[in-house]
Each structure stands twice: as C-alpha cells, then as structure tokens.
C-alpha cells in the first residue's frame, strides 16, 4: 500500500560508475508488486542499464500511466522526478515534457492495458512524432490491478484463470510499431536480464522513440497452463534474433566492428550498438526484411526477441519542430516577450 523506503546499505565492494555512484544509488522505493512479478526484474535491468550509462539521476524523468507496470517508476532512481499520470495518457505527458525540456532522459513505463487499449492512440502518435524516449511496455496479456481480465495483447486461445479462452486477435506492439514507422523496436523477456540491459542502454541512446516490448508474465493472474504469457510458455517459445551489445563510445569498440555476422549501428550520441544477428544475416536496419522475418516467425508462434528494428536517421520531435538544441525552459523571458514597442507597431495592422 504506502510507499516503503528502502534502507540504503552500500557495500564497500560495490562497483562505482563514472559519476562515482553504485547501482544502489539508482534504486527507488521498495516494490509493492507481487513476489516474483516479472516487472520487478525489468526494473532491476533498467537500474543496471542506467547505472552503466552513468546518467545523473536528476537528469532522468520517469513517466508512467496506470496499472501494475506504471507503479514501477517509484521503484527506480529516487533522485529523478517521476510522473505517474492517468491510464493511457503517459505518451502525451512525456511529449509535452520533452518539448519543454529536451535535455532530460525520458523513461516511460507502461503496460499492455495502458498502451494497447486505453492509450493506443497516444502510443501511435508518440511513435509518429518520434519523441526521444525509452518506452517500455511491460506486457503480460492481462489486467492485474483489476484482477485478471484479458488485455488487447492476449493471444487467441490463451485461457484466463477461469479457463475461458480469448477469441479476439491480439495487438502486437512490435508489428504495430513497425507499421507506424517506429525508429527503434525491441522485444525481450523479463527473465532475460542479459538481453534486457543492453537493449535498454541502446534504447536510451537512440535519437528518437525507442519501443521496447517486454513479455513479463503475471505470476498471479496469467502464469498458469493455457496462458501464452506464462514463464514456461515464453521460455519455450522465445527465439533470439539479435543481441544488442551496447558499447559506449569511450570503450574499445573496434574489436566488435566487422565481426562475423555483426551489424553495427552508430547511435545519435556517437556510441555504437552491435547486433550479433541470429541468423547471421539479420539486419535490423532493413525494414522490409524485418517485416518479413517477423511475419514468418509469428505465424509459427515464435516470439522473436532482441533488437528488431532501428533507424537512426529519421527526424525526431525537435527536428520536426525546428526547436533549438537546448531546453525551451532555458530561454529567458526577455527573449520571449516582444515588448511594448513591437506591440505598438503590430497594432498598426489592426486599424
């Protein structure tokens, strides 16, 4: 129920990042989700990724909607402003905030109800605007907080706890993102931290909207036999396509480039993400092939994970708006107000 502060106990042996901060410095309050919830694993991976990127906590802005997933921004980076908005409305909040202050790293946490039902339109338009942010869908196919209704991502034939099968076609955020022209699309599994951390790092370095769909089984309402979003099901069906191996600019990157089957993509901030394609010829920059590949595997019932698509060339919100490199909030009022002389002059047009 209420937020529970985590005791800060720093072990002296904990590694420190460039800012001299340990992983613990990026934690939040204690999670109040069910024990074993996939969302907590995602939070842990996110904390790791942020720590590795050595982002100053106060330069992060956490935004979310409503639902189990949307509670989680309270569970990471205490030193960052957070905004737990209304159900489905996180994308507009993030868009407005980003328009005002582009200097922050925006992390949006959402769920399948939030993103694929009530807020589906907002998600689509945030993708179209290419708002620079990490947008995580913690996807479990079920409404947890209201106790177990199907969400729009539930697969056909997937059974609820009451053994009723879902008959409606699911909305797949990956296909959706691809068709809308999303510039960064990844999918992973909450239980696969090894894959999640580099994906999150790459997503945060991406110059535009980074959509990360994370299958995150609901231990309470959707982890039983017959569910297609249970731990067992996902582990058996997941197929890794590419591993995002994030290498910051400062470290040795040359060794990775040109390795057999690897595709290197230069990120907006100059760092490079290397994808070890599985199969070796998988190219996350070739939209048509990605489409075909995903279609092919989806029909077979396979969940393709990894960094699936990336485009580092498309203009993002601020380029589309012609706004400066710095935050609009930094423009002094004196520069914004045309003053009385201009008003007098202007009013000659109103005669």
């Amino acid at each position: 129920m209420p937020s529970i502060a985590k005791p800060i106990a720093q072990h002296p042996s904990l590694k420190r990042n460039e800012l001299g901060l340990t992983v613990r410095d990026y934690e939040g309050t204690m999670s109040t989700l069910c024990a074993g919830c996939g969302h907590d694993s995602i939070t842990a991976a996110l904390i790791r990724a942020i720590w590795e990127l050595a982002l100053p906590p106060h330069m992060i802005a956490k935004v979310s909607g409503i639902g189990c997933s949307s509670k989680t921004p309270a569970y990471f980076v205490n030193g960052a402003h957070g905004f737990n908005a209304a159900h489905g409305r996180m994308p507009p909040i993030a868009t407005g905030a980003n328009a005002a202050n582009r200097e922050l790293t925006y992390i949006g946490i959402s769920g399948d109800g939030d993103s694929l039902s009530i807020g589906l339109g907002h998600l689509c338009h945030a993708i179209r605007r290419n708002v620079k942010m990490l947008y995580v869908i913690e996807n479990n196919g079920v409404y947890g907080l209201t106790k177990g209704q199907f969400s729009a991502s539930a697969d056909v034939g997937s059974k609820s706890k009451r053994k009723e099968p879902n008959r409606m076609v699911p909305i797949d955020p990956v296909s959706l993102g691809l068709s809308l022209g999303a510039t960064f699309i990844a999918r992973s599994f909450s239980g696969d931290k090894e894959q999640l951390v580099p994906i999150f790092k790459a997503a945060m370095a991406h110059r535009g909207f980074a959509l990360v769909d994370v299958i995150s089984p609901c231990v309470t309402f959707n982890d039983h036999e017959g569910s297609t979003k249970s731990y067992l099901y996902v582990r058996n069906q997941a197929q890794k396509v590419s591993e995002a191996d994030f290498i910051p600019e400062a470290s040795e990157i040359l060794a990775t480039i040109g390795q057999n089957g690897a595709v290197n993509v230069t990120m907006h901030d100059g760092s490079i993400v290397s994808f070890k394609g599985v199969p070796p010829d998988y190219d996350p920059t070739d939209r048509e092939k990605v489409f075909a590949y995903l279609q092919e595997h989806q029909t077979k019932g396979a969940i393709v994970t990894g960094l699936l698509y990336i485009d580092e060339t498309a203009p993002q919100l601020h380029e589309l708006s012609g706004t400066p490199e710095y935050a609009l909030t930094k423009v002094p009022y004196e520069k914004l107000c045309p003053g009385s002389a201009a008003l007098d002059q202007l009013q000659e047009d109103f005669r």
Partner: protein
Amino acid sequence: MPQPLLDPDVAAPLEKPVRVNDFALKLANVNGTGSASANGLLMQAIFRMGIPVSGKNLFPSNIQGLPTWYEIRVNKDGYTARALDYDLMVAMNAQTYERDIRELREGGYLLYDSTWPLDPSLRRNDIHILGVPFAQMCNENFRDPRERVLMKNIAYAGSLVAVLNIDMDIVEELLDEKFAGKKALRESNRRALRLGFDYAVEQFAPLPLRLEKMEANRDKILIDGNTATALGCIYAGATVAAWYPITPSTSVMDAFKEFCERYRRDPETGKNNYAILQAEDELAAIGMVIGASWAGARTFTSTSGPGISLMNELLGLAYYAEIPAVVMDIQRVGPSTGMPTRTQQGDLLECAYASHGDTKHILLFPANPHECFEFAVKSFDLAERFQTPVFMLSDLDIGMNDWVVDRLIWDDAYRPDRGRVLDADEVRDLSHFFRYDHEDENHVAARTLPGVDPKAAYFARGSGHTRTGAYTEIPDEYQQVVDRLARKQKAAAKFVPEPIIVQHRPASSEPRMLGSGSIGVVTLGGCDQAVREAIDRLEEFGIIADFMRVRGFPFNDAVEAFLDEHETCFIVEQNRDAQLRSLLTLETGVVKEKLRSVLVYGGFPLSAKHVIEGITSQMGEKILAVHR
C-alpha cells in the same frame, strides 16, 4: 435628383429626418462565395471613418453553399451590441429572401440583385426596394467564372459606399493595402467597386441613413478575441502550445503560430523558441500541456466545450497533482456537437468543476478582445501562482468577430509570476524537499522542476498522496491535502479580476422604481455591451438598475456584496440553465430567490432588446404601475 426605386405598387414615404451614424444593416449571403471579405471591408472602412461600429458574422458550420449573414451596427453613442432591427438588408441569397425580407423593419431598405426578378409574393408595401443587377454587371465585365462570383460582393460593397456615404478614399486605401503586390486582383476589385458605386449613384438618391466621419476610434483597434488571446500567450512567455483543431478556437492557434514565426524565431540560428504540438485529440492536448508545465514551460491549449469534456480526466490530475495549466475555452453552442459556429456561455459549470471527485477551478471571463489579451497573460500568472488549471472562457462572438476596442497596452516592467518554484540553490539549502508541505499564505506549497537537483525529485501522481508527496490510502493524510486544495482555490478569489460595477443613482431621492427596491443586473463576458445598453434604455420604463459584470471565479467579496446590496438581481447570461446564477447560489451566501434570470441561448450574440424584454416581462405589473 434620382429617387430610391420604391415598390411600384404602394410606395412607402421616404423617411425623414436623415439618421446619421445610427443604424444597422444585415447582409445575407451564400457561404463560400467570398462575401466575408467584402463585408469585413465595409466594417473596416466605417471603423476608419472614426465611427463606433460592430460586425457580427453569423455563419454556418459548412464550407460552401449554406446561408450566412453579416450584421453591421453603427452607433455614434457607442452602443454597438447586436441590433435586432435592421434598417437595411442586402439580400444576396435567394434561398433566404423570404426570411431576410421579413426581418427588415418597417420603412427599411432592401438592396437585392435585380438580375433576376423578385418574386411578387415577397414584396412588402412598407419597405423601399433597391434593385441592382449585380450578377449581370459582373458577367458582362469579368470573364473568369470564379471572378464573376467573387466580384459581385465587391460590387454590392460599391453600391453601399454610394447610398450610405462611406468614404470612397478609405475603401480604395483598404483595397490598396489588401492587394498590395497583386495588381490584377486590385484592378478587378477597383472595377467591381466602381460598377456597384456608379449604378447606385445614377439610380438612387442617398438614403436617409448616412455615415459621417467622427473621431471616436483614435485610440482604438479592430481585432478579434482569438488573435488577442494568442497575442496574450506570446507576451506571457508561453513556449509550448498543444491543441486539437476545433471551431471556434482554431484561430487562436493559427494566430499564435503566426506571431511565433514573427517574434519567436531566433534571428541568428533560425531556431524556434516555441513548440506547437497538434495533438491526436484533446486528451493528448491537455496531457502535453500538463507534461510541459511539469517540466517548467509556460504552456496552454485552446479548445471549445467538446474539448473540455474530453480533457476532464487530466484536468483533475493537474488539479490534484498541482500542475499549472492554461486552457483557453472558446465556447460554442452545446450540448454534444451542438451548433459549432454559434455562440453560447454554456461551459461555466463544466469548467468550474471539471473532472470527477471534488475539484474546483479558477475561471476568467473576458468581455472583449482587449480583455482577452489582458486575461490571457493573467491566466498564466494565476495558473503558476496557484499551481492549478486556469480557464479563460471566451466565446465564438468574442473570439471570431472583429471588435473595436481600446488599444492594447504592454508594461515592459512585467515579469511572469512563476509562483513558488525552488531553484537549485534553494533546494541545496534544504535538508529535504517535500512537495506538498510548507504552504504559504495562499495555501500553495513550493514545487521543483525536473533536472535541477536529485534532492528536488518527487513523484507527481494522481493517486492519493500525503503532504510529503508519498502514496497514501489513509483518511487523515488524504484529507490534509484535499482540504488545503479547497483553501487554495478560495484564496485565488483575491487574485482574479474584480467585477466591473456601475451604479446608476436615481436623479431624485425617489426609489428606483415604484413599489420595488433596488435592482441589479449581473452579467459576464460578451453580454457586456448589450446589458449596458439595456440598462440605459430601461430608464424609459422607469427602471433604474445598477450593473455588475463578473470577471472571475472564485468570486471575490465585491461580487457577493453587490448581490447583498440589491433587492432583486437579474442575471443575464447565454445558456439555458442559468449557469452563472447556479454558480452564484452555490458559491456565495446569496438568497437564491432574489436572483432572477434572463437567458438568451439560441446561438446568436446578445442584443439589448433581449435584455430589456427579459427584464420588463418579469416586472410587468410594476411597470404598468409606473405608467398608470
């Protein structure tokens, strides 16, 4: 001397004496045919002649082919609310001849296109009929089919210039300005203007409705409320605007964009010191405003009633999480889609209590474009001072019609009131920061912006929270916060604009009305001019009434005092359900029974006639007593 072409059967006598600078004309057109620019031209020419004037565009929710009207009222004494008695009707739409001719007052003048004969059944014996073959003359003089249609409008403008004595030099000057650099168009317009003018001079004597130059507009401008609102947002320093297109608010953002391109583009870098986000819907528009405001920008949205309905959810969030938000509501006729191009004051209650749960907001009611400019700036100051949504309730009449108002004035000493926002240094001096703690005398707690300092971080939420900002489901902790919000909203009463009050003391010590006590007339927004005119004319009925125009909510003390001081108050407003009256009864201690309503809500701007009828009809017996 040529005479007006009177009805050949029974000629009404020509009126004497000549009425100078005091009459109303109505122009009936088909929309999408270019009449708006001709009508605007006439109105602007009269404005430049220095005569008090108003122009009301009564247009359909349609692109082309439906009836549209434009009304011009000139009045040397400054009474320029909508008139309902038309002295001159320019009938250019055969679809509406019947109605238009019927609306003309007895002894009035009808100007119509005599290319086609007027159906004899439409003729009236008590009016003067002036026929000009506009279509024929344009067909003979112009070749391009589109030009033939467009120039008919300029041709009738030319005839009006002749019969009403509009200054031709001023009209020519306006055309020069409008078509600067478009030589061919300028020439076509000049020719069409002359065609109509010459025909009228040859065929008709000047009408006994005449315009003569005055000096009433020296310090005035001609501007619509939406342009003035946008200008206010520019001067207030708004950098982020989010919106979804909706009539009649769209021109707010159109104007904002234009001003931004003019004043906000960095001359050195070419970069825009503004961002205008056309959202996917109004839910997103207000969401973007809340996000941008949370991040520290001055930001607003412009919308109308249906948009407010959609924004309700997030308005509650902004109220509860205490995030400033400015909403420009350009009201139109509801409910539902209603009549999008008609005016109403129907959003008062919706805005006052927008969103579920206990919510209460700050409202501002501008009466004209001049106040739109001032109140727009004030909206931002109040939103940030009180960390809450502020609604400026304009309407279609104020927003989309050109009004003659006092020149806008700007004080260069103005600096935005950002309210209580802690900067990095202030945060560093604190041992800890709690978002909703340490309220000031207005019950406002300090906020922080993202990106300042890790110590300043807090979690904004629409869920139950304590004064530290932490999640809660505990009754006392919850109530502590929402009780402060109620006190905070109340405190804003001292900061919203005071009402405008005009006392009309009776000349003698006699009571204001035989058998009655003191009378007050209370109104808001764009009803202002009509109500003031009505009060002046009510003296003819022996009714002396005081005037109050409410300009903000929560109501300040002066509002309640006025209600207390008067035995009877007529509340004049443009909605069916007496929303201002309801709000006054709910939010002041006034006795409900002494508030009476005058309600005009059909969608057209208010006229003094409506108000006089509304008040006298409720005082029927008392008025009779006076005249007895």
